[in-house]
C-alpha cells in the first residue's frame, strides 16, 4: 500500500468517525430528528430554570411566574380564535382541573394558559375560552403577556408560532410542566393527560 493510500484510508476512517459523532450529537444520539422531540428530551434531561416571565392577569394586574414559586405549574399556549388544537387544550385543561382538584385545593398545582395572540385575546375572550371548555377560576389562570414579553415567553419555553393558511396560527401545542423550583421539568402531548397527572401526583 502506498503512503498516499494509507493516508487516505486513515483520513477516511477519521472522517467517518467524525461524521458519526457529529450526526449523533445533532440528533441527541439518533433519538431526536425534530426540534419538538429535541426540546422534550432536553427538558427531561436537563431541566432549565424558567425566568419570572411577566403577564397580565384576567383582572388586569401585572404579574409574573414567580408568584407560583413552590407549586407545580402546568403551562400551555393558546389563542382563543383557534378551532383545532387549542380547543383540545381547553378541554384537556378542564379535565386536569377536575383530576387534580385535590392538589389544586392544596395549592400544590396551578394551571396557566398563556395567550400568544395579544391583539385578539383580551380578558373577555380568555374568560370565555375557559368557561366554554367547562373550566372554572379555581387554580386555572389565564395570562396575557404584552407583545414585547411574549417573545420571551415563546423563546424560553421553546414554542414556535407561525401563521397558518386560514388566518390563524400553527404551533407546537403541549403541556409544559414547571416544577416548584421554577424549572421546566417535562413537556407532554395534549393527549397525555394520564402521564401529566401521574407525573404531578408522584412528585407532590
Amino acid at each position, binding site marked *: 500500500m502506498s503512503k498516499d493510500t494509507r493516508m487516505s484510508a486513515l483520513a477516511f476512517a477519521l472522517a467517518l468517525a467524525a461524521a458519526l459523532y*457529529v450526526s449523533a450529537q445533532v440528533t441527541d444520539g439518533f433519538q431526536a*430528528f425534530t426540534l419538538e422531540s429535541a426540546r422534550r428530551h432536553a427538558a427531561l434531561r436537563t431541566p432549565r430554570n424558567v425566568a419570572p416571565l411577566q403577564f397580565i392577569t384576567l383582572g388586569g394586574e401585572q404579574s409574573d411566574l414567580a408568584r407560583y414559586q413552590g407549586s407545580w405549574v402546568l403551562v400551555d399556549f393558546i389563542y382563543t380564535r383557534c378551532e383545532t388544537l387549542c380547543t383540545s387544550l381547553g378541554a384537556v385543561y378542564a379535565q386536569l382541573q377536575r383530576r387534580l382538584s385535590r392538589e389544586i385545593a392544596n395549592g400544590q398545582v396551578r394551571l396557566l394558559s398563556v395567550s400568544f395572540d395579544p391583539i385578539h385575546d383580551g380578558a373577555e375572550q380568555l374568560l370565555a375560552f375557559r368557561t366554554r371548555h367547562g373550566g372554572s377560576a379555581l387554580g386555572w389562570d389565564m395570562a396575557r403577556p404584552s407583545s414585547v414579553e411574549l417573545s420571551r415567553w415563546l423563546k424560553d419555553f421553546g414554542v414556535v408560532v407561525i401563521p397558518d393558511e386560514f388566518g390563524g396560527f400553527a404551533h407546537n401545542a403541549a403541556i409544559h410542566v414547571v416544577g416548584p423550583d421554577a424549572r421546566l421539568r417535562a413537556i407532554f402531548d395534549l393527549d397525555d393527560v394520564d402521564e401529566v397527572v401521574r407525573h404531578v401526583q408522584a412528585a407532590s
Partner: protein
Amino acid sequence: MFRQQVRRNVHHHWVALAATLLWIVLLLHPVRSWFEASMFRHMIVQVPLLFAVGWIWGRWLRNSYALNFLQRANRWGATGMLLALVTMTLWMLPRLLDSAILDSQWRWAKFLSVPIFAGTAASLSWHRCPAIARGVIHMEIIATFWRFGWGYLIAEDRLCLSYLLNDQRQTGMALFWIGGVWAVMVVWRPLFGTLRVEKTSG
C-alpha cells in the same frame, strides 16, 4: 498558449468572486428570510445554492498548490465525498432546518458547512472518484431523496416547527420527483447514449 492559460486563470478568479458575492447575498436578512419562509425554498433552493457556491470555490482551489497536501489524504475522493454526503443529508433533517432559522449559531453552521464540507469537498473529490464509486454515490443520493421525500410526504404531523403541513407535503413530493429525475439522468447516457453512437457509425 500562455496568454490563454492566464485568461483562463483570471476567469476562474471572477467566477469565484461571483460565487462569494452570491454567498454574501444569500446571508443578507431579507434574502435569507425569503428563502427560509418556505420549506421548499429553504431545502431545495437555498441549500443547493450554498452547495454550488462551495463547488465553485472548490474549482478555484483546484488550481492551488497548497491543496496538493490535502489531496494526498483524498485518494479516489473518498474522504471528500463522504463529508459531502453526510453534510447534505444532515441539512435535510427537520431539526436542522428549524435550528438554522431559529438560532444564529446554527445559521452560521449551515452557511459554512454546506459550501465548505459539501460543495468544496465534492468539487475537489468527484473527479477523483472511479466510475464504480460514482455509481454507488448516485444510488445513495437517489435513495436519500426518495427516503426523505417519502418521510415528508406521509408524515401526519408537522415535523418542522417553522413550516405548515402543506409545505411539508409539497417538499416531500418535490424530493421524490428530484430523486426520479436524478435516476433518469444517471441511466440516460449509459442506456441511450450508446444507441446514438451506433447510429452515426452505422
